[in-house]
């Protein structure tokens, strides 16, 4: 009898597939890696062969330099590759541009590695596609019932209302450089904000890459010191979270510190980080999306890779859904990026 762990099993370097001899999102260099998406903890440099979507390969090339891997194997959404009888296809995960679930099939067994995902609409990437499977391997970053992300539109409206209320101040939105920043900008455009948005230097290359992939971000300009300080009054600036409380922010007039993250749901978190305007915008599934996905897929078994797995395990137990935690290490949450890091 074929067991799921014959097809995929946790190893120190990450989730490993013995019959296909490859890892999924390994945390250290390996010969063959399937990469679900471009965030640094999932996509590392130095593998022999990287199999990923063309967008993810482009993101890795932008972040690590074009020699980030020995060989690239591009697999577009819906396409598949087969090696030693193991078929791997990549299906949209709705997390960031190019993010994919890895669907692994072997001898009639289907296992889906979700990578990071969300279920709500995101104008900067393809939406999550549910794939029926025997085992669903899920993330659980926001696996606690307190995490319920409100509709994006409400959060963007909060930001625009504040800009109207405080025309003499600038608004700096802390947003992770890959995915969140572009989504915030795009959502602002959809809400009718057509003024120039000023961006921190650390975002520029990824913004260009998104635009090259057809995501129109509208007029952007560098948030440089060369401008008169007061010229930033009433403007929106997007920067990596670490820049928010850094000396960098002093070039702006009385900045309102906004932070776009699912963690902003909890007030103490916002307070502790000195955030004045929390924007609850996450690229991860919230509690309702996680549980809805498990209900919808109704897999034979659930494995949980990383995050707050104990509460999701408890939920599965109450539903009578067999589940286990893989306790994979090495995956941080990009929304929890170290704030004390002082980037220039």
């Amino acid at each position: 009898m074929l067991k799921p762990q014959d097809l995929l099993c946790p190893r120190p370097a990450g989730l490993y597939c013995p019959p296909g001899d490859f890892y999924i999102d390994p945390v250290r260099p390996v010969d063959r890696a399937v990469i679900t998406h471009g965030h640094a903890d999932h996509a590392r440099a130095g593998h022999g062969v990287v199999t990923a979507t063309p967008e993810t390969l482009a993101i890795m090339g932008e972040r690590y330099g074009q020699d980030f891997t020995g060989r690239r194997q591009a697999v577009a959404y819906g396409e598949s590759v087969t090696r030693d009888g193991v078929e791997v296809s990549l299906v949209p995960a709705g997390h960031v541009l190019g993010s994919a679930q890895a669907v692994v099939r072997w001898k009639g067994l289907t296992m889906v590695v979700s990578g990071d995902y969300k279920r709500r609409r995101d104008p900067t990437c393809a939406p999550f596609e549910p794939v029926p499977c025997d085992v669903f391997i899920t993330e659980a970053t926001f696996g606690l019932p307190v995490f319920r992300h409100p509709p994006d539109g409400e959060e963007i409206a909060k930001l625009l209302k504040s800009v109207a209320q405080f025309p003499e101040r600038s608004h700096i939105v802390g947003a992770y450089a890959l995915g969140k920043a572009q989504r915030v900008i795009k959502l602002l455009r959809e809400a009718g904000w057509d003024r120039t948005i000023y961006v921190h230097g650390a975002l520029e290359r990824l913004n260009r890459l998104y635009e090259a992939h057809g995501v129109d971000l509208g007029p952007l300009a560098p948030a440089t010191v060369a401008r008169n300080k007061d010229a930033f009054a009433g403007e929106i600036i997007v920067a990596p979270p670490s820049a928010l409380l850094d000396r960098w922010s002093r070039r702006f007039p009385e900045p309102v510190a906004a932070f776009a993250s699912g963690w902003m749901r909890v007030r103490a978190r916002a307070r502790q980080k000195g955030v004045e305007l929390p924007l609850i915008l996450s690229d991860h599934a919230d509690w309702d999306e996680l549980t809805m996905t498990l209900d919808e897929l109704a897999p034979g078994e659930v494995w949980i890779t990383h995050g707050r797995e104990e509460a999701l395990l408890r939920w599965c137990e109450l539903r009578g859904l067999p589940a286990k935690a893989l306790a994979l290490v090495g995956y941080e949450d990009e929304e929890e990026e170290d704030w004390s890091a002082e980037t220039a």
Partner: protein
Amino acid sequence: MRAFAHLLDRLSLTASRNAKLTLIRDHLATTPDPDRGWALAALTGDLSFNAAKPAFIRKAVEARMDAVLFRWSYDYVGDLAETVALVWPARPGANREPELSEVVDALQSASRAEVQRLIETWLDALDPDGRWALLKLMTGGLRVGVSSRLAKQACADLGGVPIGEIEEVWHAVEPPYGDLFAWLEGKSERPSPDAPGRFRPVMLAQAIDEAVDFAKLDPADYAAEWKWDGIRIQAVSERGERRLYTRTGDDISATFPDVLEAMTFEGALDGELIVIRANEKGDRALASFGDLQQRLNRKTVDAKMLSTYPAGIRAYDLLLDGEADLRGLPFAERRKRLEAFVAAAASPRIDLSPLQPFETWEGLAALRAEPPEGDAQLAEGLMLKRWDSVYEPGRPKGPWFKWKRDPHLIDAVLMYAQRGHGKRSSFYSDYTFGVWREDANGDRSLTPVGKAYFGFTDEELKQLDKFVRDNTLERFGPVRSVRANLDFGLVLEVAFEGLQRSTRHKSGVAMRFPRISRIRWDKPSREADELATLERMLGS
């Protein structure tokens, strides 16, 4: 309810006073009656309900979700109202969201059992922010960092009137304040402030500038008295209404039934609220501010509190004598009436702040430097009042001065720094400092004695921030520990007003009103003060 919830949400994370004023003013300007009135009442503390106990809310939520998942959620969030607001299972198709006024109306007329059912219905209909606001309101106490004074200032901003005018009518208007808003928006006359027991806006003193002012002032024009270290109050007893107000017009009558009972007079006194009781010699004597603090900010007060910390009024002005408004009379005249008034009241809880005769400013300076035995030693300094001054609300320049005692100074060593808020969020602007303590082996180590976050210029803030960043030892969230030992460290000259014993602080002392008076870049850290120096100050 949604707009109110968003307002509370923003206020709870906003540090800047001006930003808070903008948020409240905008809410009052854009929210219809009566919802804005109830919002204002909630902010000024004139509206709170004890409709739901935490135990009830907990039971209600556990009936709807797994208790284990709830417990883990509560452990993570740490605040019951916020946890319940977040985890409450959404009920699709629930009723529409209630407006704040519907909630208030229902609570005012419903029985206790009905209230509990209503709360659950509302929780079903609201989003997480709305649930949070509702639960804050239900359990009493919004705690969003807004004083009633600030909320009144926002009203004043809305109508473009001085805050004194709001304070004066405040006790003649009632939530949801339809008449107040109509006046502020120019649609009707100002509500009459004539209600008995109303608050009269107070007259405040300027700080004297010794170098400039004394040369221009004639000692013969001024009366002097001690500046008492209590809280400024106004005691009004008028046509059967007895009220005790803070200087901003907050009604604190309920906290001081003992004082209220003593107010058998007909009139309005201006004075200092103090704790006063027999000393070891059996004389009635002023107790420290720390004793008064035991009585402040309490909703209820028990018999033990009343007997341990008996409160009273030290009177220094009279605004209303019977039905006569004295505010237009000169101070000399009011003072005579005050002396007779206090004598007639003949209450052990109401005494007179005595005048201190003096001939020259030098003579007065000597008195201030060496206060005589007794209550004067607890005074914060002196007050100077022009004999001919009328009682003018606000802080006019010239008629009244305060002349505080020089602060205490110590040299301490910077130990920790914390990020500031708002404008200062990119700066390490809150400084914990310590002094040397010697252990049994004669080893010296620093022990924290206080925290200060003002007293320095913007330029000095930049220098301090740089010092903190360049000399960080460890980081704990928003806090950094700074290199500080016998051979290295930054010495700060700290000024403070007084010292109290404290069981909360490791050093055993707590400072009043500490601030950085100078940065001693020149001073070696080992030469900073010893804890023993502070302990001696406590003894004196």
